[in-house]
């Protein structure tokens, strides 16, 4: 580039300012997490006496042992796995079937139905929560696994995603089979479904993550301690936070709950980022 010496200098200076800003933002991202991990490794009495004690030994794993000793946490993790897993499986099945139906098959009223399903994307959860809660009360669905799973099955995002994906597959692939009079389900199962694995992964991870982190519906539906999901259970132990009693213990719980999802994120990063950004733009 034919830039003069001063502009190169100016560029280097500008680069340094930008770099400093990015580093500052990175520290803001990471410092709170390190602080939490630090506190989780300290005895409570020592913390109360001097918060700066985080920076030096002795460290202890006592808080983690206490966390694991609290049997509720395992129950909540199990509940979260059942609810998120069930919802993910259900969403994948319903969305794949409906996506194939909307993309490839014709039936009376198909287009208007698809528009109605798309409209579902614009309905926020809060617009239906109160009524849904009342309906579930009447059906005695609260504090059950199906009570926690079912509402998520009505989300149209998966159908929208799968329809788009099926439409992108060349028609020639299944047209021949259709003319050969193979059953629709056979075509769906044998020919098309294997091609949708990337979309299944994206939708599956997105659904699982959303269900795992969901807070509002489990909060109002699962009111018994045994039926709490991890998110609600963790929130329930924070109530006596103000007395700053057992802060190290609370932090150990936070690490215990947050670490698995962060590790999963590191492994499936590409899919997760695609899923979340894709869902936002739709």
């Amino acid at each position, binding site marked *: 580039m034919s*830039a003069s010496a001063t502009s190169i200098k100016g560029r280097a200076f500008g680069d340094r300012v930008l770099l400093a800003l990015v580093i500052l933002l*990175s520290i803001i991202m990471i410092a709170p997490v390190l602080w939490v991990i630090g506190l989780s490794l300290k005895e409570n009495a020592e913390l109360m006496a001097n918060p700066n004690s985080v920076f030096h030994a002795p460290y202890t794993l006592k808080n983690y042992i206490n966390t694991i000793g609290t049997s509720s946490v395992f129950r909540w993790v199990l509940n979260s796995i059942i609810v998120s897993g069930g919802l993910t499986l259900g969403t994948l099945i319903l969305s794949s079937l409906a996506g194939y139906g909307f993309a490839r098959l*014709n039936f009376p009223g198909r287009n208007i139905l698809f528009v109605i399903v798309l409209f579902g994307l614009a*309905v926020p959860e809060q*617009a239906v*929560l109160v009524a849904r809660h009342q309906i579930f009360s009447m059906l005695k669905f609260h504090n059950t696994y199906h009570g926690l799973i079912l509402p998520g099955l009505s989300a149209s995002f998966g159908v929208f995603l799968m329809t788009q994906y099926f439409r992108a597959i060349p028609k020639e692939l299944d047209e021949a089979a259709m003319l*050969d009079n193979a059953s629709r389900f056979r075509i769906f199962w044998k020919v098309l479904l294997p091609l949708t694995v990337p979309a299944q992964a994206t939708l599956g991870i997105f659904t699982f993550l959303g269900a795992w982190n969901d807070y509002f519906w489990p909060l109002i539906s699962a009111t018994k301690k045994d039926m709490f999901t991890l998110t609600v259970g963790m929130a329930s132990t924070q109530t006596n936070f103000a007395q700053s009693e057992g802060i190290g213990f609370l932090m150990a719980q936070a690490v215990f709950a947050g670490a698995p999802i962060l590790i999963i994120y590191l492994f499936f990063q590409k899919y997760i980022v695609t899923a979340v950004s894709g869902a936002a733009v739709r």
Partner: protein
Amino acid sequence: MADQLTIRETAAPAAGVRVPSVNIYAPQWRNFVFVAPFLFFFTTLLIFPLFWGMWLSVHKADTFSTGRFVGLDNYVRLFHDKVFLQSVWNTFYFVLLTVPTLALIGLFLALCLNRRTRTAAVLRTLFFSSSVLSVTIVTLIWRIVYIPNVGLLSTIYGWFGATAPAFISDPSLAMIGIAIATIWWCIGLPMMLFLSALQQIPQDIYEAAALDNANRWQTLRSITLPSIKRTFILVIIIQIVLQFQLFGQAWLMTRGGPNNLTKPIVLYIYETAFRRWDLGMGAAASEILFVLILIAAMAQYLVTRNKGDQA
């Protein structure tokens, strides 16, 4: 259509015999079975509750009884309820605090990290990582940052012999405290959306600009920013829709206090419907939220519809 159906039915038992080519894309009722399972859940758990909610909002109802018809009484009561009006204002204030900041920091990060180096990749991972955490963990982390005595903030201020601002208890700072935690939690998505927009700008435009001796500021202003204008609007709208639904952070960090100053609309709905069990009024408040979000969603639709016009 009836003829085609009969051809199919009569021909089907004769396995292996090729049916004379019928229109395989003609509408048929049996194709409906593929969409029926989803439509069942969609209708019973989304469409029906949507209308049931509207119906509830004009009734005085509690958990088990449908109550009696009260017309627009719930809405009138809402607009006379100072706490509700406060919560509407709080929600707008929160959106104003978070959305522009998220868009600008997200854009800044995307511009800085849009390169193929390893460091940039690691930093992208870092800035998106908080987005996968649940609201419970995020609020736990930030309460421990803000808390007096052992908090990170008060420790850092302590090194300089100063007192940290009371982000949770000070009425004028509480919402800002929630906003900072939210920005920390949500920064990944805007950054990623901007990054994917930046990667779609054709490289040859930049090469042409370099040949024309354009400096970096000129390139940014006349090439990069105009090319991602649509994404910028999109990010703003998506964030408005998301942040309008503020609930967990406010409920877990401040319980809406002090003096209802951090109580957003969703928290008002939660308290009205599920703590005071005034379902009719809770439903009415959620209809108002629905309308507000629908307006933003419509704006998003209008922006995304013209996708083909601009890369």
